[in-house]
């Protein structure tokens, strides 16, 4: 069996998700079956890392139009490579780009594509189908499905745990094969015209603590104590979709299925009921503290810690308590208020 793994990389450093794709390709296909596919300049620098991961061959896609990512040109190129190699399967990380690339390639090759799998079983010789489990609704629901196709294309949901293949003989030279796709001159495609980085600072996605507010915060002004607490603990402010829809917070603050999925050390949910689409965004927090007037709210019953009460009463008291202790521990006297 041959199973291709798409390796996303930054100048030769593979992403964690790509190494998972390699591990799954090796697991499904067995020893020596995993081959890697990489785009763009620097792909050859991947060789040492891929050899240790048990990859048997590296395919590098090269073309003037591939140096910068474009969904259509990359997808068409992958489809052409798949058409030539006819592998048994292709595995990618289920990142935004991974899913986009796989869907483009599958559409162009006329193949099905299973996005965000959490388990894959290549099955036995008797059944041509691969049995897999896909994450729906961000992982709150699993779909068991059969994938039947000459080439099985799938992506892996973020956080899928795979035992990495034992790095067998790592001394052999990894063979590299260059593939140059044919891209017609009149190909209709999108091209990148601008890239910009965010200004640095604590971001929702990476903050160790997120203080988040929902309908119970009641207004844009109501977020003031949440901001104060976030600032005090070096965290970021998040929110529910109700807060976004009411215009209290920008969408970039939204936690959940259609917002950002986060995994902070502590998530403080203020006046948020805990609907599934919100929960999926915060359930990977190491600890959750719910502040809510309703002791029956799902966020309260699922949280690690809870305070029952009005967020506008509880938070100022918490802020005062934290300030008192911060003052005490640095030997300063608490500010008089």
């Amino acid at each position, binding site marked *: 069996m041959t199973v291709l793994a798409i390796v996303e990389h930054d100048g030769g450093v593979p992403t964690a998700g790509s190494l998972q794709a390699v591990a799954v390709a090796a697991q499904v296909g067995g020893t020596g079956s995993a081959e890697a596919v990489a785009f763009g300049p620097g792909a050859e620098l991947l060789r040492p890392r891929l050899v240790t991961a048990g990859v048997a061959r590296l395919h590098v896609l090269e073309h003037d139009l591939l140096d910068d990512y474009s969904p259509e040109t990359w997808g068409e190129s992958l489809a052409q490579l798949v058409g030539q190699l006819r592998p048994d399967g292709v595995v990618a990380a289920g990142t935004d780009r991974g899913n986009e690339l796989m869907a483009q390639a599958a559409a162009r090759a006329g193949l099905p594509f299973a996005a965000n799998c959490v388990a894959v079983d290549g099955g036995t010789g008797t059944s041509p189908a691969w049995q897999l489990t896909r994450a729906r609704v961000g992982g709150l629901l699993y779909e068991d499905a059969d994938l039947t196709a000459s080439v099985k294309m799938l992506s892996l949901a973020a956080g899928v745990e795979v035992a990495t293949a034992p790095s067998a003989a790592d001394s052999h030279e990894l063979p590299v094969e260059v593939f140059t796709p044919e891209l017609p001159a009149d190909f*209709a495609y999108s091209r990148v015209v601008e890239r910009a980085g965010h200004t640095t600072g604590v971001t929702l996605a990476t903050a160790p603590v997120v203080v988040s507010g929902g309908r119970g915060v009641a207004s844009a002004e109501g977020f003031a104590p949440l901001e104060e607490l976030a600032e005090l603990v070096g965290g970021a402010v998040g929110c529910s979709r109700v807060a976004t829809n009411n215009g209290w917070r920008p969408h970039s603050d939204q936690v959940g299925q259609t917002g950002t999925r986060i995994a902070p050390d502590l998530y403080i949910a203020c006046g948020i009921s805990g609907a599934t689409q919100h929960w999926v965004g915060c359930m990977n927090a190491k600890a959750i503290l719910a502040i809510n007037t309703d002791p029956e709210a799902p966020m309260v019953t699922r949280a690690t810690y809870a305070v029952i009460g009005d967020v506008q009463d509880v938070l100022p008291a918490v802020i005062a308590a934290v300030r008192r202790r911060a003052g005490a521990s640095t030997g300063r006297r608490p500010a008089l208020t």
Partner: protein
Amino acid sequence: MDICVCVKRVPGTGSTILLTDDGMNVDTRHLGFTIGPHEECAVEEAVQIVTAHGGSVTVLTAGPPEAEEQLRYALSLGADRGVLIDTGPEELDAEQTASALTQAIRQLESGGSRFDMLLFGNESADASHYQVGIRVACALELPMVGGVKGIQIDEAAGTLDLRRDAAGGIEVYRTPLPAAVAVAEGLNLPRYPSMRGRLRAMKARLDTVEVQLEPGGLRKRGLRRPAEQGSQTVMLGTGPEAADAVADVLEELGVV
């Protein structure tokens, strides 16, 4: 600008997702149906574009006859025309869905007038296949960018600038028109339907289109809920009196 927006009828869900007895679908007896947030933004964007540039908004759905409800909702937000592809009660796979939409769009365009833009949600709220829009765009040989949170039209040049989030920042793609775009929530703030819009939508005539379907290669065997780790919530108290207990926890967790 003539724009076609594809929307899907999806189950609403509460704090836990209930399944039907055969485990094949989400139980909707108590929560009804909706369209996904990405698609709400797609409809809103189309209405705003047509308000600014002229043209028309068509909403298209493949689903059971009841999906009429979602078309009327889009009409109440300002779409001009609703088209239903009646594909029966069973959930279609992604390839079938894309084929149904592609056939319908070809039929709608058979009079000779092409859509300038096709809008999709980035992923459907229930199945999340991340591909239906891409498949349609590919079949119709249109450029396609997903995850879009900003659309700028240059009518004179016949191009779109499409902004989306990228690792650690943003990226902007330029495509020629006609084009397909899959949008993500955050693109705009969708309006609520007005009373007038709702009345108009209630009375509107919907069109139907018939298509031929063959199953694709991904077959659903069933749905299940992954095991949830049961957690015992530690109650820290009630009201402001709980503040010290909260501060203790913050210290324990090492965040202060």
